[in-house]
């Protein structure tokens, strides 16, 4: 789809082409192709504006780099004269020493989630997938776009149908047919498409956080306990440092990063044992990314188990304790050994069929 869009722009013989996050759903090969096309266009005299959160891409393709922060123009520098760290500093407004937080969490032996032979009702989707997840672990799921990772985790969460397989939470077999079942089993899901099926744009932060926990804050069995709910929401805003004037603010007025934090708060308010995060930092600026990573590290330290789907290799390698790789719906391999967690190994498993 993305390739079609790019082809459209190229075929229109435009003099100026604006590309807004063009590589978010492209594989590495396709990114190379795009860059080749862009270099060709540049040689022909076409001017291009390339908007991206991906630092390495910007450094590779840009002649000049313009930085904006919070709606204001920070400045423009020739790409060769500004280092990656300087770019990040100017984007965030302060120095950011390590993108990935120090790993302090310990992985327990207890298996909190076991998935055996889970298959989709659709033959072309995930088939016969089995894996285990331990307490305090961050399990990364790598693979190309289209590997059916999202579909697999949505199947486990009860959004998509399964034709076979068993799921065990903390040793007990669970029958998850609907997200409500998954919630009751202690699982939360932060979807990859925030705007599509994550946030309620026209509702307040309070409503966005509270939506999944109302069952826990009731008076007389059916009256909403607003004071308690407000407390939970305010605590979340504090703890996760969500930038907003108040909890009554509409979530659509927040930045992508803050919206993501609201969704994380929603699930944390339920105190799940297992948190599935699908592309947790997609469309989020560097500063907020770092905050999300710190949140994930905190959660793992607290003993939560996290499954992280990521298409950003650096993120996958930087945050995962263990990596499962999928290709065309099958689980092609697991990488346990930190020394084996390399781009080459992941890509090899991701491109097996």
């Amino acid at each position, binding site marked *: 789809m993305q390739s079609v869009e790019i082809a459209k722009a190229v075929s229109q013989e435009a003099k100026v082409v604006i590309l807004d996050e063009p590589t978010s759903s492209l594989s590495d090969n396709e990114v190379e192709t795009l860059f080749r096309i862009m270099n060709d266009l540049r040689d022909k005299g076409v001017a291009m504006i390339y908007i991206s959160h991906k630092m390495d891409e910007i450094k590779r393709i840009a002649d000049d780099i313009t930085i904006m922060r919070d709606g204001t123009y920070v400045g423009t520098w020739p790409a060769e004269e500004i280092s990656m760290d300087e770019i990040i500093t100017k984007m965030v407004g302060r120095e950011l020493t390590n993108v990935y937080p120090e790993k302090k969490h310990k992985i327990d032996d207890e298996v909190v989630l076991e998935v055996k032979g889970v298959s989709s009702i659709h033959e072309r989707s995930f088939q016969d997938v089995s894996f285990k997840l331990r307490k305090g672990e961050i399990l990364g799921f790598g693979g190309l776009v289209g590997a059916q990772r999202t579909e697999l985790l949505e199947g486990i*969460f009860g*959004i998509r149908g399964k034709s076979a397989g068993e799921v065990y939470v903390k040793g007990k077999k669970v029958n998850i047919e609907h*997200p*409500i079942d*998954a*919630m009751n089993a202690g699982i939360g*899901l932060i*979807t990859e498409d925030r705007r*599509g*099926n*994550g*946030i*309620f*744009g*026209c*509702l307040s932060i309070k*409503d966005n956080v*509270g*939506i*999944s926990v*109302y*069952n826990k804050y*009731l008076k007389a069995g*059916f*009256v*909403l306990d*607003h004071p308690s709910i407000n407390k939970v929401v305010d605590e979340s805003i504090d703890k996760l440092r969500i930038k907003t004037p108040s909890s009554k603010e509409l979530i659509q007025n927040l930045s992508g990063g803050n919206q993501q934090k609201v969704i994380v708060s*929603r699930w944390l308010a339920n105190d799940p044992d297992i948190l599935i995060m699908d592309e947790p930092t997609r469309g989020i600026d560097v500063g907020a990314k770092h905050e999300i990573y710190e949140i994930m590290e905190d959660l793992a330290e607290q003993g939560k188990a996290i499954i992280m789907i990521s298409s950003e290799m650096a993120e996958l390698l930087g945050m995962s304790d263990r990596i499962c790789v999928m290709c065309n719906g099958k689980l092609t391999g697991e990488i346990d050994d930190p020394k084996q967690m390399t781009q080459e190994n992941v890509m090899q498993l991701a491109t097996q069929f």
Partner: protein
Amino acid sequence: MEKTTTQKVQDFLINYGVILIMVILVVYTGATQSNFLSVGNFNNILLNMSSRLVIALGIAGCVITAGCDLSAGRIIGLGGCIAGTLLQKIDYSGKFYPDMQPWNVFLALAFVMLICACCGAVSGFFIAYLHVPPFIATLAMMEIVYGANLLYTNATPLGGYTPEYTAVSSGRFLFLNYQIWIAIIVAAITWFIFNMTRHGKYMYAIGGNPQAAEVAGVPVKKTMVIIYAKAAAMYGLAGFMLGARAGGASVNLGLGYEMEAIAACTIGGVSVTGGRGKVSSAIIGVAVFELMKAALQFLGVDANAQWIAIGVIIFIAISLDIRKYVARK
């Protein structure tokens, strides 16, 4: 960036435009026609508002979930007719059930609301479980209810009601007509449901983003069925109220009332795009329509022209409503 004064004025006009027009109309009519600003007239307007508000509060749930309910008018008719057949004086010459004692008023109301709720539940089932768009599902129900009402009453107009039933419209409590009290109670209950129960929050969530609602663990299907069933029960109540007021009912009672109800909700702030709206929205909207109708009547405008006025208001209201949420790029 601070808004300029022009922008602020523009925003104000968009948000409250229709209400401004109403205020001007009311002031003008009050100034030029005697008796418009009288206690008697306002009581009359409040009485008219009562049944309309009950309908609007019911249909609000459907609009907040980005749906609609075309069957409201026909269900009002069904409610009014069923009530009519059960509450006729024993010695009425044209009594529908000649050998049956008239029912207790409260029992009759409960029965009417139950039957109507079932109609709504069926619509809700088709919408929630079989994914039929609300427009089509309620369109179908509209026809079915009309047909059922025709068969049931054999198209006979009903009248000769018991004094207990007509008292619903003529009786007063603390200077206010019973019907106004019914409307107040229904508004209070609806406010409670919208703001203090899970069901209310689920309703807004479904309206805001149905896919996100599923993922967030909202029982979407069940909630939708309840919304449409509850709405239909309220249409039944409104039919009961209208029948008491008129002292009679026919299969055409309430015909077309859904349009004004949806428009009233929209004027007051319920968005047809879903996820937004309050009880006050319905109250404001119904007040606007009833004041407009009364003012036009007092100004001597041809009764038939009222339809045009209603249509124009609907055009303006919905355009302004959509503008609020689309223009923000």
